[in-house]
């Protein structure tokens, strides 16, 4: 829209055309401006992202690999890492299966209230994780809406794994959906119709035509939600009670280490998570590149 506005604007009558003699100086100045812009951008990234990354690597490894090994082999740390991975795994599976379904509906279906559904999908990105935790407490905690139901069946939801998984699912719902919807929209229906016309069943059409076409976008969404799920802290802190050795995830353990002034160990666990997330980042970048290449 705004580009057409710029196009309609009449050319400036007094603009002086560049004379041949001036030209080299102008080019020289522009190269300088470009270099300056790059320098400012790099400085910002250095101060904000790379510097702190170097800081954590230095502090975690400062006291030697022996301490790192000792910390990682503590039962508390191992259990916390295991719990974080378990929650991430369940979250990713649920959000992948249902995310693809929601994406199919949002991309292909038309029904009243579709815009509301679309806004709902975006909501978890804007709502504070702490509020998400509170929501779960209001639903499942003492005096909550569903507390009698689960209490009668002897299922512990709050201060236990179920609520931790639920809040993590809530927080990472948007990633798969938001990545798959645009791919589905650009894909169109021709290939699916061809398969359908040739007698393929619905399941065959989905697994042999649709899924291979959306795979990079889907993997990108999965990587993003896995990264988000393993790093969740605010919501999990509130619903889990952070019971040591029981409902303590890796992030909650880091929080405890820093509270108890065991900063060295906190840095080491944090670096472990950071290392995992950097592997995820490489995955994210690869999938994103493949997906963009596929889309064009």
């Amino acid at each position, binding site marked *: 829209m*705004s*580009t057409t506005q*710029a196009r309609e604007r009449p*050319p*400036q009558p007094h*603009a*002086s055309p*560049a004379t041949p003699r001036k030209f080299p100086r102008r080019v020289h100045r522009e190269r300088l401006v470009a270099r300056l*812009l*790059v320098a400012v951008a*790099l400085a*910002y*990234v250095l101060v*904000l*992202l790379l510097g702190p*990354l170097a800081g*954590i690597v230095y502090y975690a490894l400062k006291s030697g690999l022996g301490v790192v090994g000792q910390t990682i082999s503590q039962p508390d740390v191992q259990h916390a890492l295991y719990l974080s991975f378990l929650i991430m795994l369940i979250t990713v599976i649920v959000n992948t299966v*249902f995310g693809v*379904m929601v994406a199919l*509906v949002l991309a292909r*279906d038309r029904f009243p209230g579709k815009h509301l*559904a679309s*806004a*709902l999908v*975006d*909501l*978890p*990105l*804007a*709502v*504070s*994780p*702490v*509020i998400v935790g509170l*929501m779960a*407490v*209001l*639903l499942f905690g003492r005096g909550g809406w569903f507390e009698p139901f689960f209490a009668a069946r002897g299922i512990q939801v709050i201060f236990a794994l179920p609520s931790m998984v639920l809040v993590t*699912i*809530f927080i990472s*719902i*948007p*990633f798969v959906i*938001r990545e798959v919807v645009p791919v589905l929209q*650009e894909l169109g*229906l021709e290939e699916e*119709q061809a398969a*359908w016309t040739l007698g393929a069943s619905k399941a065959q059409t989905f697994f042999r035509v649709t899924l291979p076409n959306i795979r990079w976008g889907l993997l990108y969404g999965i990587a993003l939600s896995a990264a988000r799920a*393993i*790093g969740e*802290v*605010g919501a999990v*802190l509130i619903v889990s009670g952070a019971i040591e050795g029981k409902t303590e995830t890796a992030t909650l353990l*880091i*929080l405890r280490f820093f509270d108890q002034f065991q900063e060295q160990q906190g840095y080491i666990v*944090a670096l472990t998570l*950071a290392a995992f997330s*950097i592997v995820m*980042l490489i995955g*994210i970048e690869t999938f994103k590149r493949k997906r963009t290449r596929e889309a064009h």
Partner: protein
Amino acid sequence: MADTAIQTRRRGGRARLRLGAAVGRWPLRGAALLYLGLFILLPVAAILQRGFGTGLGNLSSALSSIGAWSAIKLTLILAVLTAIINGCFGTLLAYVLVRIRFPGRSLLSTVVDLPFAVPTLVAGVMLAALYGPGSVVGGWLERHGIHIVDAPPGILLALLFVTLPLVVRSVQPVLLELDLTEEEAARVLGAGQWTTFRKVVFPALRPAITAGSLQALARALGEFGAVVLVAGNIPYKTLTAPVLISQLINQTSYGSTATSGPDEAAAVSALLFGLAFVIVLVTEKFSSRGAGWLKT
């Protein structure tokens, strides 16, 4: 746009497929909507009922009792600052990444995505490691009278860290699709680099910059993990609203029921949630394809 032909074909296709798939549509639609309803709508209903259910009078009295206003004010100021600063630097980074060739460009592009992958709490740990008073950089700054950790600048850095990719990834695709001939026309007509950017490029980018900054604003308002370790959480000084909510809830779950923690927590949450929801709705307006969040 260029894919008008594809769109018409797709529209025709949809009509035909609809007839064929009329039976199979409802289970999918139902499952998708049930998932969204159970995981998003229900928790939202719970928080609204608890926060606003007792009337606005109770809401304001709950807010006034515990220094909640100062926490909300601090959070708002820092979030707005975050949105503005990253609005500028995010646009700069997107411009540098798209328009300027330099060695290490793809590496920079990967590094910009680091905050998507790194757990927010680990981001806080990183900042504390580099800028804490015990480190080389932090100690040097401290000697020159600049406090970062346990002070508002630390919170600001944490929020900037977490929200940087939102703006970059919102602006980048628009910049990539932008027609270079318009800029060339402006240059040929004698406009300088700055004038070209201000009058041709910026108006085209404005919706994307606004959408990205609004996402950053919403995210910054609710951020917990990155903030909790660097803020120091001193009431009336560096205590942000999400951290306050978590303290109010945890206070009650560990015994001391002297204060009415959950009511106050619900009040602050309802207010923050309302803000987040408004921001989501406004952002939907600015994002061209209706899928604005994380559209990369």
